């Protein structure tokens, strides 16, 4: 079974289209979306429709904090995210809002757990930025592989049999073996707003037949998305962020 994992689309149509086109060439059996379909980007309604269509075709979708904020304005969000959310909300139809509000917080399938931010108290949207932040995720569940998004920076960590969690170097585009002697947590990079200095859409493919995870990057028409952001009057910092991927 080969699962494509997409996350943090953030209303970036061009990036999502590029990822789906890339995926179509790579023998994928199903798609899982780890949330944050909307927020920041200029095409929230189109992206929700596209993800709903994927779900119709069998994709699993879990809820992200921006999806949640459509119905529940959050005081936790920074000013840029809040302004973008206020711009986003009126663009979404009733059915789209209901869809986002009804998304589950996490999805467990066999030995793999899919969740937006962290496995421990997922509603607190904890950023798994280092090994100590990953401890909680490993502690609260027995999933061998935990796949999260939220951070917009791809990362790979493992928990060895004696309980130590270590960060692991990975090479984008190469299959990383998820050794069965360990448990693994992977932060999948963002489709629509990368923050690791690479201005390309990110996603990942998990192959449960070979126990391998590939972090993938796909170029997309950044200039087009940036032009739309500016035309919509969204904060300039968002345009800069997409341009640099940081």
């Amino acid at each position, binding site marked *: 079974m080969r699962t494509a994992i997409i996350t943090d689309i953030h209303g970036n149509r061009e990036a999502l289209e590029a990822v789906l086109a890339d995926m179509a060439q790579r023998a994928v059996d199903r798609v899982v979306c780890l949330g944050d379909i909307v927020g920041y980007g200029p095409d929230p309604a189109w992206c929700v429709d596209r993800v709903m269509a994927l779900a119709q075709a069998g994709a699993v979708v879990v809820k992200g904090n921006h999806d949640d904020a459509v119905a529940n304005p959050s005081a936790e969000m920074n000013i840029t995210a809040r302004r973008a959310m206020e711009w986003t909300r009126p663009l979404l139809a009733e059915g789209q809002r209901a869809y986002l509000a009804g998304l589950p917080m996490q999805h467990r399938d066999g030995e793999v757990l899919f969740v937006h931010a962290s496995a421990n108290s997922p509603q607190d949207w904890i950023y798994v930025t280092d090994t100590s932040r990953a401890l909680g995720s490993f502690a609260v569940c027995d999933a061998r592989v935990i796949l999260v998004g939220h951070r917009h920076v791809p990362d790979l960590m493992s928990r060895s*049999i004696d309980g130590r969690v270590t960060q692991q170097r990975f090479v984008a585009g190469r299959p*990383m073996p998820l050794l069965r002697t*360990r448990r693994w947590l992977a932060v999948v990079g963002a489709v629509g707003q990368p923050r690791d200095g690479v201005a390309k859409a990110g996603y990942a493919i998990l192959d449960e037949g070979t126990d391998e995870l590939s972090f993938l990057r796909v170029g997309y028409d950044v200039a087009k998305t940036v032009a739309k952001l500016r035309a919509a009057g969204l904060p300039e910092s968002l345009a800069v962020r997409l341009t640099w991927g940081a």
Partner: protein
Amino acid sequence: MQRPSQGLVIDGFTLAECLHKGGFATIWDCTHPDHPGRLAMKVPTILDGFDAPTIVGFEVEQMIAPRLTGPHVPKVIALGDFSSMPYIVTEWIGGGSLLEVFKGAPLPLSDVLEMASRMTEAVVDLHRQHVIHFDLKPANFLRRDSGAYVAIDFGLARHDHLPDLLAEEFTIPMGTFPYMAPEQYLRQRDDLRTDIFTLGALFYELATGRQPWGDPGSLRGVRKRLWRDPLPLRALRPDLPEWFQEIVLRCLEVDPKARYQSAGQLLFDLQNPGQVRLTARAAKLRADGRLAVFRRWRAMRGVKRLSAPAGVGAQMDEAPVLMVAVDLSPEAEGLNRLLLTAVRRMLAVQPDARVSCVNVLKTARIGIDSATDEAGDHLHVMRLVALREWGAELALEEGRISFSVLESSDPAAAIIAHANRNRVDHIIMGARGHSATRRYLGSVSAQVVSEASSSVTVVRVP
């Protein structure tokens, strides 16, 4: 977790005799109904399940070994995890390890060279697959019936494309004391030239019967090799040729930049002794004096890292062996100028590349060796002189360029054989224009392109 024992059946594998009991693992003779013949099962000796170094080393091997292919690595059949019993099952390799052979050192020079070449061939193959071994030693080379050497035990290895489970785990240097490179002592795990140092230490032992720094028995003792040079080989065994001492001492340079930059380049020198450029290393008959050693000690005592490469991938790309097949006939003059330009361009982006210039002296028929008569001998030398003249235009220092005139009735086959024997990464050659003869006889470059195992660039006059 189960423990291995004779007669144990696990995942279909039946354990027979225990063949080896080491500090970290046991090796078992085993069989499986789906896999004909003998197999070998390696089981780590894990005490109470919480023996971090053994566990991680075993995980590293489980990660890397199944991803390697070819005659120089054992074929992995199956892996077991901690839920039942951790193990790796591989094919059976019949020829035994080099441990016994090393006990017979010093060996005759011809045996030393044969073994050195075969060990280096195995390392070339590992590096080509983006793996640095970091624990090459006599016990970690097995022999196939075909004669090829197989590198085993990837517990300390690093694969350039995979997570390095060892990087964050331990704060002490890892390796086998007599063969460890200086940068390994400094805990650097990113340089394939580390394996080249270790090969040098192994060659030293084969030729002299002594390890270059003995067996220090402690890490502190390993540190000494950062400033103390080993006794030159010819001081222990004067009959060794200077070029061999040059090769070994170059491998054993403290600064990785002063060693061979790739195992392929080392192999080239082992197989072409006449082309080895001799330096002060070749003539040395005594270890350096106290003052020189003291100066090095002062320079090295505070060193935290030795010059590291930009990356293993970059190392492999930048230090290739390029082979240029040059046609020296007068009508190829224009083509040869283009060939020169093409080689110059490649050298600009691959500054550590080494160039092997080749010309084929076509013999009339198979079975007639033109070099045996005086006229043939003369022709051979003339060609060599002309080839050197052509190569001089590249203005490379001696050790980076070599010249060979091959004699054969089949030029393409000769070029391909030379490339294979010397593990050439890239062949550059010219193609002559269209002619009736070429149409009937076939072109040399086309045959090389289709049959060579390396990359081939064909240069043509537009």
